[in-house]
């Protein structure tokens, strides 16, 4: 095992010491603040035990914001280290840890929570439902994600960070070449979060198939719901593969098996195979809901119905189908041979086709529309050219033979940042600006939003565009330094400056959230953008039961046509019935804590202790099995009161774009 007890707590590095102190102060500060405000009961009742999809979604988004900060710091550290040749800010070991945690956090603990969070808030509303199919399971999903994220994040404080890249290739990630427990954090923390995500996938498949309002056929669903549904199917298909891969990694590292080791006739390439069987569909899990968000934003702010709805649906299904057929393109150079490489080159290039269809549909939606340059729309507009760069460089990489030149160079790094950031991060920002009033009852400030936008987009392009050229000139990824003779210096410096500008942009977002929470006008309508889909047919923020009366859907863009024909939005109080809502539950929160404890023990290879904690997990499941509480009914008087309050406000200003 070789655990050095005197080295458990990471010491001796000023940066790490600073962060340890910062984390401690933040935790203590949070505890003190909540105690001072006497809000523990409120916290428990309203947030820790909630099964409300809207609250769960907001908590996911909060995790995403915090993790964006941590992952961003990692990125800035990398850029600071590589700004000049032969820099010594971070040594090689630290640099390895930083790029590993940067990758894992940005994809699994920033992008996924943001997207799943927005899915959680919006999808049930868009289909006219009152919650998801399995609300308590939904809470379990969130708290498991949270437990996994927390477990992963303490690695650099205690035990040591994983350092074999976010892809954790064997044999490097195995015990023989990376002793110590850092990579155990990778295997176990991600596994816990992954279980939560798989449950979310199943939850949303059932929700979308079984809980749509009457009249909402599949071909009348909003695009964001369609893409969220398809992403849930991809989660269902790919996460079980990752679960097994991580379990096998755990076995190799902690129990001495020989799946991916060099000894014992193991096969390290099998790790890469299984990882990417999951890893490629994963990027479509993040990008498809993002595309859905762009569809909503573009059609709303072009004042036009989405162009080519049917082809959009077929494209999304096509992309999802193909996404399971391309995974080897991530390891063309690993020696699978020309036949394998050729087949996967072709399937990879094929994915560009449905993606292109979507691009044209977005452009045609804007054509002859009346475009409103809100912050949300600007993110969508910037997405189009930036994602094109990412996508076309992807087709370059897709040619297996050519990829031997590009593979693992900065060209590759630039490509995936040009698809992930415009494709996912811009979309998340657009979604936040768009749906913020629906979530919180006030809007994000548009001026600050524009500052956020410009700094972020300019900073992003300055950071990553040079990396294409650096890559073509021979600069490789995951390299902590370079010599001056390479000539990489000037472009590396430009890139690092760009990262600083990017960070300022993120700072504007955080400031906007704070400023708007304090100063923004609360007296806004429930439909400030004059939007098209059903989530806007509710109060802002949304009533806890979503809809007093389940809407009847007669067309695509249901809400738009209800407004146009002035039918379906009025509330006849005689039609009101008691609404059945699920109980809150502390069990999801407790279960995640037990999972976290079990995970911690397993990471530190205290197998007996982990087994005991495992019993705790089973105890939670047994407790759940014997729980026959069946929710409560909201009395009609309470519904009347809540509906009166927000519907009166609505009679005044209809269109409210500040």
């Amino acid at each position, binding site marked *: 095992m070789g655990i050095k007890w005197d080295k458990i707590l990471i010491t001796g590095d000023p940066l790490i010491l600073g962060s340890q102190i910062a984390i401690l102060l933040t935790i203590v500060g949070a505890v003190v603040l909540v105690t001072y405000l006497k809000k523990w009961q409120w916290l428990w009742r309203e947030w820790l035990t909630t099964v409300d999809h809207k609250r769960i979604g907001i908590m996911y988004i909060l995790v995403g914001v915090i993790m964006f900060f941590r992952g961003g710091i990692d990125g800035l550290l990398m850029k600071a280290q590589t700004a000049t040749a032969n820099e010594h800010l971070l040594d090689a070991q630290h640099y390895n840890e930083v790029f590993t945690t940067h990758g894992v956090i940005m994809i699994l603990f920033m992008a996924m929570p943001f997207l799943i969070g927005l899915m959680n808030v919006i999808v049930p509303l868009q289909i006219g439902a009152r919650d998801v199919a399995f609300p308590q399971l939904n809470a379990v999903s969130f708290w498991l994600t949270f437990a996994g994220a927390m477990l992963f994040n303490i690695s650099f404080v205690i035990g040591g960070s994983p350092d074999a890249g976010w892809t954790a290739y064997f044999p490097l990630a195995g015990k023989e070449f990376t002793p110590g427990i850092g990579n155990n954090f990778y295997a176990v923390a991600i596994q816990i979060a992954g279980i939560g995500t798989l449950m979310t996938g199943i939850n949303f498949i059932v929700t979308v198939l079984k809980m749509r309002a009457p009249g909402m056929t599949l071909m009348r669903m909003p695009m964001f719901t369609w893409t969220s549904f398809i992403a849930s199917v991809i989660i269902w298909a790919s996460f079980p593969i990752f679960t*097994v891969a991580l379990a096998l990694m755990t*076995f190799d590292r902690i129990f001495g098996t020989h799946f991916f080791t060099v000894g014992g006739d193991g096969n390290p390439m099998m790790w890469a195979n299984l990882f990417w*069987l999951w890893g490629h569909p994963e990027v479509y899990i993040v990008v498809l809901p993002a595309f859905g968000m762009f569809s909503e934003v573009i059609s709303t702010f072009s004042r036009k119905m989405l162009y080519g709805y049917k082809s959009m649906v077929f494209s999304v299904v096509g992309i999802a189908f193909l996404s399971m057929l391309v995974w080897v393109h991530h390891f063309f150079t690993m020696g699978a041979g020309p036949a394998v490489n050729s087949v996967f080159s072709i399937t990879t290039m094929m994915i560009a086709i449905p993606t292109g269809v979507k691009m044209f549909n977005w452009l045609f939606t804007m054509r002859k529309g009346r475009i409103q340059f809100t912050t949300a729309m600007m993110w969508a507009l910037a997405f189009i050219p930036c994602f094109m760069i990412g996508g076309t460089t992807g087709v370059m990489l897709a040619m297996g033979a050519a990829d031997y030149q590009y593979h693992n160079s900065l060209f590759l790094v630039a490509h995936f940042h040009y698809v992930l950031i415009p494709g996912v991060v811009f979309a998340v920002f657009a979604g936040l600006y768009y749906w913020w009033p629906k979530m919180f009852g006030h809007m994000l400030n548009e001026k600050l939003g524009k500052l956020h936008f410009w700094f972020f987009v300019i900073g992003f392009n300055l950071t990553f565009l040079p990396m294409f050229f650096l890559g073509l000139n021979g600069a490789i990824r995951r390299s902590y330094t370079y010599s001056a003779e390479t000539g990489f210096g000037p472009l590396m410096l430009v890139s690092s400056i760009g990262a600083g500008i990017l960070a300022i942009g993120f700072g504007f977002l955080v400031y906007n959230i704070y400023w708007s929470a304090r100063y923004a006008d609360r007296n806004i309508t429930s439909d400030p953008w004059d939007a098209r889909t059903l989530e806007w047919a509710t109060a802002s923020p949304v009533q806890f039961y979503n809809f007093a009366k389940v809407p009847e859907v007669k067309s695509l863009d249901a809400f738009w046509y209800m407004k146009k024909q002035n039918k379906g939005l009025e509330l006849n109080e005689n039609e009101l019935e008691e609404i059945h809502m699920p109980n809150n539950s502390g069990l999801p929160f407790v279960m995640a804590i037990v999972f976290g404890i079990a995970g911690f023990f397993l990471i530190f290879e205290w197998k007996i202790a982990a087994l005991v904690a495992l019993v705790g997990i089973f105890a939670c499941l047994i407790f759940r099995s014997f729980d026959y509480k069946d929710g409560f009914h909201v009395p009609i008087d309470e519904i009347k009161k809540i509906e009166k309050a927000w519907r009166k406000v609505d009679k005044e200003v209809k269109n409210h774009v500040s």
Partner: protein
Amino acid sequence: MSANVNAALPLEYQSEQSRMNIFGFWIFLGAEIILFATLFATYAVMSHRYAGGPTQHDLFEINGVMIETILLLTSSFTCGLAIYEMHRNQKKGLLTWMVITLLLGAGFVGMEVTEFVHYVHEGATMQTSAFLSGFFVLLGTHGLHVSVGIGWAIMIMIQIAKKGLTPITARKAFIIGLYWHFLDVVWIFIFTFVYLKGMVS
């Protein structure tokens, strides 16, 4: 979430939430198909990587495998009989056949544990080679699923004994039934592609 009760349907399908639970469980089983497929893929890739250690021919004994197979298959059959009794509203019949099912299942697990202990004594552990790592993790995952299923079924049976046959308890019984049948379906492929295949070549 209205109850949306349809009394014409079998007990386990009567409420809308129950229908969603059952449907959701089928989706979960689909994910489990993919999970086991990954374990099979790993076993397939590793199945000839012996590191100079024992091979399938050295270890597998057909008699034990056949007994395990008959035990599990019969338990899937008796589980079907249990649900059949449930559809005839026979709580006692349901519980009786479930007990038989779980006894057969426990017999399966017992035999499998004995089989593994025997291999370890022969010097074939999961740390010996990639083949054995793949074997033990695939079979072990299946065996663990069966063991968890036994515990889960006992919990359900306690609830049925206490609360009788209601739409909720019927749904729970139906779902554990699906789970149990699924594990036998997985075993068909273990029997075929691990044991039979290993004893041919």
